[in-house]
């Protein structure tokens, strides 16, 4: 078999439409605007009133209206090569990043049988319940998953994983086992927001797993991940108690209920890093009334020095079969001590439209 013939499509005259695979394109977009209504900021950092809506990509609102922090667009490209092989990519441009397009997913999947699929490449790190579709805001109730919970600076990894899916009586049992590494040459959260020097953040020897149990109106999810952290500040390796790496362990549980128009969403996570615990949880409740779903939400982050929580009130209006309007009010309390404040107390309003196509 002469590969040069097959690849001829990619040669000088790629115009030939040789149908090698079925390519599907879908996408999503969010346009959201918001502002801080009142806030204290953090005077000791010289930070004015700020609402940090998205930690990992540093999306924040200030006192003037901004349409960037939560706005984004995305294209998903899926090529079915048949015989179980698929190539998938997700191209995302986020307002917080000046809409620069980046591939958030770039992976290959191979369906071994009806239960198991092997994947390799770049994927979302599936720490949290909403990690896999974090950018697809249409997929969830709020404007954004609780900022106080989805705080970790690394949210992708490059590696391999195995997904499974079984039906056990009334339960759908699915999950994922993964391993890999992420090397972020200039981490935005650590370099821009929590510091002023370029920080290269490496999470290596990542090993984790996810187990999901679904039946009817109940959805349970368990997550665990362990990794080694390596960090360079301005090119100089950071030491923790004299060691050049530190071990982090992440564990979480989530229980969601969707019953008789009531929606209850909960998530509880703990990251243990060098013996210190970082605890997060969220509780949301909503009630579906026709196209409208008003909701309340409380999310909390608690560690030795960094402590903050957000109480949110909002509504989702499904005015279209593939688009939703959302409005949300957030009240943040920042109780950080010892210089571990994030952005101070704030009250903010955000509204926007999320859609998929």
């Amino acid at each position: 078999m002469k590969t040069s013939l097959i690849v001829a499509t990619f040669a000088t005259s790629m115009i030939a439409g040789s149908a090698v695979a079925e390519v599907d394109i879908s996408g999503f977009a969010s346009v959201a605007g918001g502002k801080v209504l009142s806030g204290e900021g953090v005077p000791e950092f010289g930070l004015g009133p700020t609402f940090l809506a998205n930690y990992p990509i540093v999306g924040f609102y200030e006192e003037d209206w901004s349409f960037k922090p939560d706005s984004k667009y995305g294209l998903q490209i899926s090529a079915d090569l048949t015989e179980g092989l698929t190539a998938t990519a997700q191209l995302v441009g986020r307002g917080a990043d000046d809409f620069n397009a980046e591939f958030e997913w770039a992976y290959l999947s191979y369906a071994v049988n009806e239960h198991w699929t092997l994947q390799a490449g770049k994927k979302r790190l599936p720490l949290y319940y909403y990690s896999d579709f974090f950018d697809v805001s249409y997929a969830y109730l709020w404007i954004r998953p609780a900022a106080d919970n989805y705080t970790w600076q690394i949210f992708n990894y490059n590696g391999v994983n195995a997904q499974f899916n079984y039906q056990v009586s009334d339960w759908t049992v699915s999950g994922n086992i993964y391993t890999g590494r992420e090397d972020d040459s200039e981490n935005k959260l650590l370099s821009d927001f929590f510091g002023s020097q370029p920080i290269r953040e490496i999470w290596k020897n990542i090993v984790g797993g996810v187990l999901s149990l679904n039946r009817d109106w109940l959805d349970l999810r368990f997550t665990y991940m362990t990794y080694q952290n390596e960090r360079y500040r301005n090119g100089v390796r950071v030491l923790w108690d004299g060691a050049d790496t530190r071990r982090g362990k992440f564990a979480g549980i989530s229980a969601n209920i969707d019953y008789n128009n009531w929606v209850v969403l909960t998530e509880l996570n703990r990251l243990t890093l060098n013996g210190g615990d970082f605890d997060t949880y969220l509780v949301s409740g909503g009630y579906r009334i026709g196209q409208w779903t008003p909701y309340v939400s409380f999310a909390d982050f608690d560690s030795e020095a960094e402590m903050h929580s957000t109480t949110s009130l909002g509504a989702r209006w499904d005015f279209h079969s593939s688009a939703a309007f959302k409005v949300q009010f957030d009240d943040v309390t920042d109780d950080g001590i010892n210089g571990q404040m994030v952005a101070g107390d704030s009250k903010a309003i955000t509204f926007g439209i999320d859609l998929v196509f």
Partner: protein
Amino acid sequence: MKKTLIGLLVATAGIASHTAWAEVNINGFASVKGGLTTGKDDTLYGYTNDIEFKQESLFAVQLSSDLGEKLSVTAQLMAKGADDYDAKFAWAFLSYQVNDDLRLNAGRLRIPFYKYSDYLDVGYAYDWARTPRAVYDVQFDQMDGLSLYYSKNFGDMTSNLQLVYGAFEGDIQISGAMSKSKVQDITGGSWELSNDWLSARVAYFMADVTINATAFTPLLNALNTFGFATVAQELDFNEDQGTFIGFGLSYDRDNWIAVTEYTKVKVKNSYMADRDAYFVSVGHRFDTITPYVSFEKDDDTSKSAIYKPIPPQVPLFATVAGVVESQSADRDTWSVGMRYDFHASAAFKLQLSSAKDNYTAQKDRLLTMGVDLVF
């Protein structure tokens, strides 16, 4: 699989006209590769002793559309792991098919330095885990400009001539630092003559190379200050003439595959060594499995004449000599590997490479495995 993405494109661009609907073809390719060096302190091609899946993984989507009347447009959006998966247009050009033999391309194009230049990123197109780095080492591979293709059949022979003119602007790595560069008046071409089982190729390019190597600014300033301005001019890249010569030969018959390429790269009046490199690779196809072995030689001769005008007792002598001599290289790389075509448009690859620096006798070994596919 002809996608009418144009509806989306048109809507996004806000073009109201519905007169120019053309069909858009979507193709693409992807590679996911993992690698690690076998020795604790070994490093090769960016890999270390920690296994890593980012260095050579990539994903690309290619859109092409025939606009009719001999005009077509092609764009390739690519994200490389080594580049943090930032999406970039590697190619974007218009093609005008003058007649059956002649085609003109204009836009962002690949420079046909090497035999596999057109598929540098399409790992599926070759058997190795990567194109041989000793030879495939020019730091830029695209330009903005024009390219003329002329292909003609003579009996069972095919002749492909490609002439290019253009310029590259971007970053080139100099002594570890990305440096703003301009390569202007890139002029040259490649000519390939092939039949069913044998192909021979020659390529020649020249260009004016300017690199603002900030790493060397203090040294150049010092040379100018101490009266060695001519030495400074011999070191820097300031519209200096670069030349590229390449030869290639490949054989593919009775399941035996052999490929060799030789390149010679020079930039006059710069500290860059004269680079000579070649590789030879031989493989044999056993149905879906193709084992191969390859040898690469990198032989870079430093320009010692540059620092001769500086008297050895002047402290700058050692610095300049160090910079110039750091450019010399004598490296042998052996690779053994195999390609396994487990799918009609995907291949699994496994390759072990061992690079030996003949100056230091340091050996770095790298194991790479991964999947290349096209869609």
